[in-house]
C-alpha cells in the first residue's frame, strides 16, 4: 500500500512540477523533484517496499519525461540503492543534508540518463556535455525545493504509521 501511495504522490508531484514550470519561465527552469522522492524512499523506506516505490517513481519519471521505457526506472532503483548505501554510512537527518542529497540525486539521474542515452542514441541526437550547466542548475533548484517536498512526504508516511497499543511515548 505504501509504495502505491508513494507512486501516487510522485505522480501528483510530477504533474504539479510540469504545470508550475509551464507557468514559471515557460520551461526555462529545470527541476527534478521526483529525485527527492526517491531519496526520501531510500532514506526512510524498507528494502522491499522502498525498491518497489523507487521503481514506481522511476516509471512515473519515464512517463512524464518521455524517456525510453525503463531508463528512469532503472536509474531510480539504482539511485535507491545508492541512497541506501549512503544512509548506511552517514546519518542524514537535517533538512540541509536532505536537500544536498536531493541535489546530488538529481545530478545522478541526469548524468546517468545522459551516459545511457549516449550509448543507444544516434550520434547527432545523443545528449552531450553542453547540458552539464543545465544539470547543475537542475540539481541546485531541486535541492532548494527538497525541504518543502520533505514535509509532504513525511505527512504521507504519517498516514501509514500505526501506534502499537501499550507503548508509552
Amino acid at each position, binding site marked *: 500500500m505504501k509504495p502505491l501511495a508513494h507512486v501516487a504522490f510522485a*505522480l501528483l508531484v510530477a504533474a504539479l512540477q510540469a*504545470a508550475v514550470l509551464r507557468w514559471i519561465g515557460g520551461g526555462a527552469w529545470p527541476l527534478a523533484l521526483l529525485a527527492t522522492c526517491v531519496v526520501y524512499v531510500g532514506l526512510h523506506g524498507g*528494502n*522491499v517496499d522502498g525498491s518497489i516505490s523507487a521503481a514506481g517513481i522511476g516509471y512515473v519519471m519515464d512517463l512524464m519525461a518521455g524517456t525510453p521505457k*525503463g531508463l528512469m*526506472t532503472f536509474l531510480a532503483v*539504482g539511485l535507491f540503492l545508492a541512497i541506501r548505501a549512503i544512509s548506511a554510512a552517514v546519518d542524514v537527518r537535517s533538512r540541509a543534508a536532505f536537500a544536498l542529497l536531493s541535489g546530488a540525486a538529481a545530478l545522478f539521474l541526469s548524468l546517468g540518463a545522459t551516459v545511457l542515452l549516449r550509448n543507444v542514441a544516434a550520434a547527432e541526437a545523443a545528449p552531450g556535455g553542453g547540458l552539464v550547466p543545465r544539470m547543475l542548475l537542475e540539481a541546485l533548484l531541486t535541492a532548494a525545493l527538497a525541504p518543502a517536498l520533505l514535509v509532504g512526504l513525511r505527512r504521507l508516511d504519517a498516514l501509514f504509521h500505526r501506534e502499537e497499543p501499550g507503548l508509552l511515548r
Partner: protein
Amino acid sequence: MLALLKRYRELILVAVLLLVPLAVFFAHAKRPTDRSRLDRAVVWLATPVEKAVGWSVRGTLDMWSGYVALRGARERAAELSKQVRALELEKQQLVSGRGEVERLRRLLGFAEAGPDRRYVGGRVIGIRLGTVGRQLLTIDRGSDDGVAPMMPVVVADGVVGRVHSVAARSADVLVLTDLNSSIAVRVERTRARANVRGLGKPDLCRLDYALRTEDMIEGDPLVTSGTDGVFPRGLPVGKVTQLERRAHGLFQDARVVPAVDVTRLEEVLVVVAWERPDDAMPAALAPAKVP
C-alpha cells in the same frame, strides 16, 4: 532452493527491479514503442492535476491583473485622460494650422497669378453681418499699410467686397452681399453685362440690369467687368441662379450665389494697385489726353 529464494528474496527483488528496466530500456531504446494502456491510464490521472494547476495559476494571474495590479489605475487613467485632452488640443491646433497654410498658399497662388496687381494681405479680425446696418468685415490692415477706401478686397475664390473705411491699422470692408454694394459684372460665357447687388444676406445677391435680350442661363459664372472703376477685370463674383425672364420689361431677374462665403473668411487680399483698363490699352487706341 525455496529456502534460498526466501533468504535472498529482497536481494532478488531489487535485482529484478534493477535489471528488468535496464533490459527494457536497451530493448526499446532504439525502437520506441507506443504507450501501453497502463501508461495512458497513468498519464490520464496526471492530466487533471496539470489542468487544475493551470486553472489556478491562470485564475490567480487574472485576479492579480484584474484587481491587485489595478491599484492606482484610476490615477493613471486620469493622467492619461489629461494627456489625451492635451494631445487632442494640439491636434486641433495642427489641423487648424494646416488649413491656414492651405488658405495662405491659395492666396499666394492667386496673388502670383496677377503680377500686374499689388496686394496687401490681411487677417479678418472682426465681422458684422447682422441684419441691421452694413455688412462689414474688419481686417488688420489700414492706412499705414497703404489701404485706402474703395480698394477691392479679394480672396482666391473671388471678390469679397471693397474697403469702406480705413483707420491707421485696420479697415472695414463692405462685403458684396451688403445692400449698398454694387459690382459691375459680365457673364463669363457671353460677356453680357449686369450688376451684382447685395441683398443683406450673406449667401445671396441680386442681379441687376441684365437685359432681357442677353443670353444668360442658370449656373453661368459672373466675373467683374472692371467698368465700375473699383474692381479689376475678371475676378469671380458668383453664379447665376433663380433666373426669371418675364414676358415684358427691360430686364430679366436673377439671383447670384457669391463665389466667396463671407462667413468663413480668415485672410483676405486688398488690391492696392492694379493696371486699369485704360492703362492696359495700346497707346494708339488709348483716348487722347486733353492738355
